[in-house]
């Protein structure tokens, strides 16, 4: 008697409340139609591919729909990036879509300072009007745009928008960490690293399988899409052994910020043992041997520098590892068939990040892995339709607020810091700041400064699906779709060897009164009127995307992904010959793209050295002439007196504040990291895979498994080594205050046997203080307390340069030690 019994029990439940059948009746806030469907629909299933918009990777998704309602997500096996895998945050996509506290309508900050709802029309009219006015008064430069929306396509649109309203001020998050490649290869992009065919990847600080631009790609390329008993070996050098890196063949624990030194030590061994690619070095590199410059001066060569200065014993002293390890690793690299050296994570967050990058990348040069399978090459360009230049006559170009020089960033800038500083010191007034899909107040070390700056800016508009730290300072908050509701165009994430283009289409109509950031920009442009409107001719974001895609059809390069990744590859090769026949028109290309959600082009143009090395010498420059010239110019600018090149260079170098001298400055060298603060431990914030993207904190599930490697959740932990714990008399589970000169946060001690002594690692991702996610007020944000030390070369703020101390707040309340602590 199932039915009656349940009713009877229900009645009982009503009567005595003794019943837990709540699981069975679903009470929803979403439109009744959807509820009706879910409860009475025929239960027909369908799978729709789209793109994950939660972090910068843009993995391929397959959404499981039952009667048209999304009820499950999985990785799209066709997509060349993730090939069927999906990270924890991606899995939480539905929790982001159905999240309890999504923004449901635009909000304007009232006189009282609290947000009150406002109609889209009014909101857009207001901002549009303001834009139009500034535009007509030639005040366009008083508009600034910050965006982290992944993918080049959106960024192009945003740039066009800025241009249209006459503002040069649009931040490019892409600039992060590409300086090393500019200096050595003369290129303005991060080259592709072919993890698919590499057989040994040495990572300097980059948690390949957790952090970086596309960890899921790293996993599937190095392990997932290889046969059983096969996978790319992996050496990790860093200060912390993450879950991913624990699979490394060798783990080289080193002192914080000494990754560069280790790289040079390895280089030393390779060179001394002649274990490097002589032909490549001879043909395609510059400054390896000593050389005579055009003034006839003897210049130091990389080889001599290495042999004289970077012998293993010294490296061992610097890195706190043993020389034998350096040699062992070097030999392993030398023997490998397709080795690769990559840098990232903590390796590219130090105050010496650029030089670390250069040192590591010069390893790739020594190993001669450029332009070959399993090596470093430039991904083939994505032949998007170029945007026709609007008639720029009326659009005067002022100097950008993000331009290097001035109070902050001599050689490059941290966009957020620069913006904040110049607004606060009044050297560059901003009246309208538009923040799109980004939460800099939370994520940037200059966040607090930015929030101060925002108070001075007349109006701040934030486009976001959730209230967050940044929108807390906004005058107008415009609710945007979450990715499952919107059109997305993503392009290859950095450091991937092939090029992909993801077209994500909405799988469900927007649940609330939200809009796509692209559409909002287009409407604002129209509202601004005049040439601004003309410069943004597209009716909607998908139109814009469609137009850009046309280029792909015309070029005929690449192909829409089909079948499983392998099939897709085969298919790709097959249709090389007759590819032109494939998509006769934009229409059916678009249709195919919608169906499969991805396009890719895996064949790099080989042998195109000129494209690979755009340096003055047309080679890989150990000795960076690019930098030399740049330093000269900078030096020259420091004073308006005439001066010799040498003098200018001297001044430039001084401005850069290097700790070495002579030619070494211009060669890959080890720049000792700066650490500021009184504490005895070095603070190294890191991004666990559960903190990818800025919406992770929205999902209860992600929060609950936030610290899963420690079987832990809902709290920020401070990871320290066993010895460190012992020295500080701390035990796993103790609650401590992590105190820097800048502030203090609370964290729970987690003892990890493999963490480097005198370091403390704290994950970012929790510690939100705005009612955006479910994890608000939970945990803490280490970025709040990092000292804003700058990498003088790139101007990027280092997050790993602060010294902190741990103060015990409360002993572990109960329970035994965690398994990591050898508690079993």
């Amino acid at each position, binding site marked *: 008697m199932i039915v*009656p019994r349940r009713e009877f029990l229900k009645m009982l439940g009503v009567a005595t409340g003794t019943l837990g059948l709540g699981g069975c009746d679903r009470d929803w806030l979403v439109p009744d139609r959807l509820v009706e469907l879910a409860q009475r629909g*025929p*239960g027909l299933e369908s799978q729709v591919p789209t793109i994950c918009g939660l972090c910068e990777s843009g993995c391929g998704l397959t959404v499981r729909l039952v009667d048209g309602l999304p009820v499950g997500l999985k990785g799209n096996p066709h997509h060349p990036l993730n090939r069927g895998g999906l990270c924890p945050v991606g899995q939480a996509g539905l929790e982001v879509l159905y999240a309890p506290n999504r923004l449901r309508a635009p909000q304007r900050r009232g006189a009282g300072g609290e947000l009150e709802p406002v109609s889209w029309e009014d909101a857009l009219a207001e901002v549009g009007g303001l834009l139009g006015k500034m535009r007509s008064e030639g005040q366009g430069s008083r508009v600034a745009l910050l965006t982290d929306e992944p993918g080049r396509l959106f960024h192009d649109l945003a740039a066009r928008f800025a241009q249209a309203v006459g503002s040069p001020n649009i931040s490019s998050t892409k600039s992060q960490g590409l300086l090393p490649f500019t200096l050595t290869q003369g290129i303005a992009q991060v080259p592709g690293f072919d993890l698919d065919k590499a057989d040994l990847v040495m990572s300097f600080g980059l948690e390949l399988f957790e952090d970086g631009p596309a960890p899921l790609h790293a996993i599937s390329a190095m392990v997932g899409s290889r046969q059983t008993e096969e996978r790319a070996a992996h050496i990790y050098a860093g200060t912390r052994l993450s879950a991913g890196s624990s699979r490394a063949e060798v783990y080289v624990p080193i002192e914080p910020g000494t990754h560069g030194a280790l790289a040079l030590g390895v280089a030393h061994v390779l060179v001394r043992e002649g274990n490097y690619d002589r032909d490549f070095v001879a043909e395609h590199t510059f400054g390896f041997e000593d050389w005579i410059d055009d003034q006839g001066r003897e210049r130091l060569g990389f080889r001599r520098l290495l042999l004289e200065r970077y012998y293993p014993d010294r490296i061992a002293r610097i890195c706190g590892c043993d020389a034998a390890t350096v040699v062992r690793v070097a030999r392993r690299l030398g023997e490998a068939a397709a080795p690769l050296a990559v840098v990232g994570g903590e390796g590219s967050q130090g105050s010496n990040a650029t030089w670390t990058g250069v040192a590591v990348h010069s390893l790739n040069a020594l190993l001669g892995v450029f332009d070959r399978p399993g090596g470093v090459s430039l991904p083939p360009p994505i032949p998007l339709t170029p945007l026709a230049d609007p008639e720029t006559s009326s659009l005067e170009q002022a100097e950008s607020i993000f331009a290097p020089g001035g109070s902050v960033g001599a050689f490059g800038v941290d966009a957020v810091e620069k913006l904040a500083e110049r607004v606060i010191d009044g050297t560059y007034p901003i009246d309208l700041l538009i923040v799109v899909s980004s939460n800099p107040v939370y994520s940037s070390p200059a966040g607090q400064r930015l929030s101060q700056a925002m108070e001075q800016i007349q109006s701040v508009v934030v486009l976001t699906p959730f209230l967050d730290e940044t929108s807390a300072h906004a005058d107008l908050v415009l609710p945007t779709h979450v990715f499952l509701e919107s059109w997305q165009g993503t392009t290859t994430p950095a450091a991937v060897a092939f090029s992909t283009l993801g077209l994500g289409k909405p799988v469900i109509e927007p649940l609330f009164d939200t809009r796509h950031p692209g559409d909002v920009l287009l409407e604002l442009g129209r509202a601004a009127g005049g040439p601004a409107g003309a410069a943004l001719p597209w009716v909607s974001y998908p139109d814009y995307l469609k137009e850009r895609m046309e280029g792909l059809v015309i070029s005929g390069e690449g192909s829409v992904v089909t079948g499983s990744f392998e099939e897709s590859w085969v298919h790709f090769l097959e249709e090389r010959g007759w590819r032109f026949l494939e998509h006769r028109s934009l229409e059916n290309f678009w249709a195919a793209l919608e169906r499969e959600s991805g396009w890719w082009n895996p064949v790099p143009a080989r042998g195109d050295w000129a494209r690979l090395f755009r340096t003055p010498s047309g080679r890989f420059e150990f000795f960076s002439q690019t930098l030399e010239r740049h330093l000269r110019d900078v030096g020259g600018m420091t004073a308006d007196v005439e001066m010799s090149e040498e003098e200018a260079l001297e001044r430039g170098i001084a401005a850069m504040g290097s700790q070495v001298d002579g030619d070494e400055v211009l060669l890959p060298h080890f720049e000792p990291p700066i650490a500021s603060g009184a504490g005895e431990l070095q603070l190294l914030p890191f991004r666990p895979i559960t903190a990818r993207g800025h919406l992770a904190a929205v999902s209860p599930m992600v929060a609950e498994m936030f610290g899963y490697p420690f079987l832990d959740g809902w709290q920020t932990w401070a990871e320290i080594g066993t010895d460190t714990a012992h020295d500080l008399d701390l035990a796993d589970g103790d609650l401590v205050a992590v105190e820097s000169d800048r502030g203090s946060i609370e964290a729970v001690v987690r003892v990890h046997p493999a963490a480097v002594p005198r370091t403390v690692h704290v994950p970012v991702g929790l510690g939100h203080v705005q009612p955006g996610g479910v994890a608000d007020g939970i945990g803490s944000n280490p970025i709040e307390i990092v000292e804003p030390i700058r990498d003088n070369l790139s101007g990027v703020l280092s997050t790993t340069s602060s010294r902190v101390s741990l103060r015990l707040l409360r002993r572990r309340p109960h329970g035994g030690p965690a398994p990591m602590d050898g508690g079993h």
Partner: protein
Amino acid sequence: MSSGPVRVALLGVLLLIVTGVAFSLLDRPIEQPIAFNHRLHVEDLGSDCTDCHLYAMTGVRATIPNVEVCADCHAEAQTDSEEEALLVAYIASGEPIPWRKLYWVPDHVYFSHRRHTAIGGIECETCHGPMGEASEPVPRPFVKVTMNGCMECHEQTGTSNDCLLCHK
């Protein structure tokens, strides 16, 4: 003071009454918003179950037809029955008809029509009884959906009775 046994007796009687009321409340008849006539549609007009219960062969749920299905024939009135008038009104307004379910399984049971009809080849009547002959809405299901019922049938047809087959 009344003596003990009497009190006990009184208590017993009270208990009986309570349970009686409870059970009487259990199967309250089910009223439908419109007095739909199955016989008329099936026997007289000779239409098939799946003509209206579209997914009886293909879906997990057979689905109860609603305005969009009914509209195929009843966009405007066919007869002068006021029940149909009601229907037409619903269709006109686009309001979904609040049909009440007669046969249903709890949330922890996975029942797929397709698995039983298309694959198992079971007639609708086996579980739903002579619905087609009902000329007005049935207040109670012809066949009570019970676990024992399911299991008996599985016994007879030699289908597995592994709990996992239906419990989810």
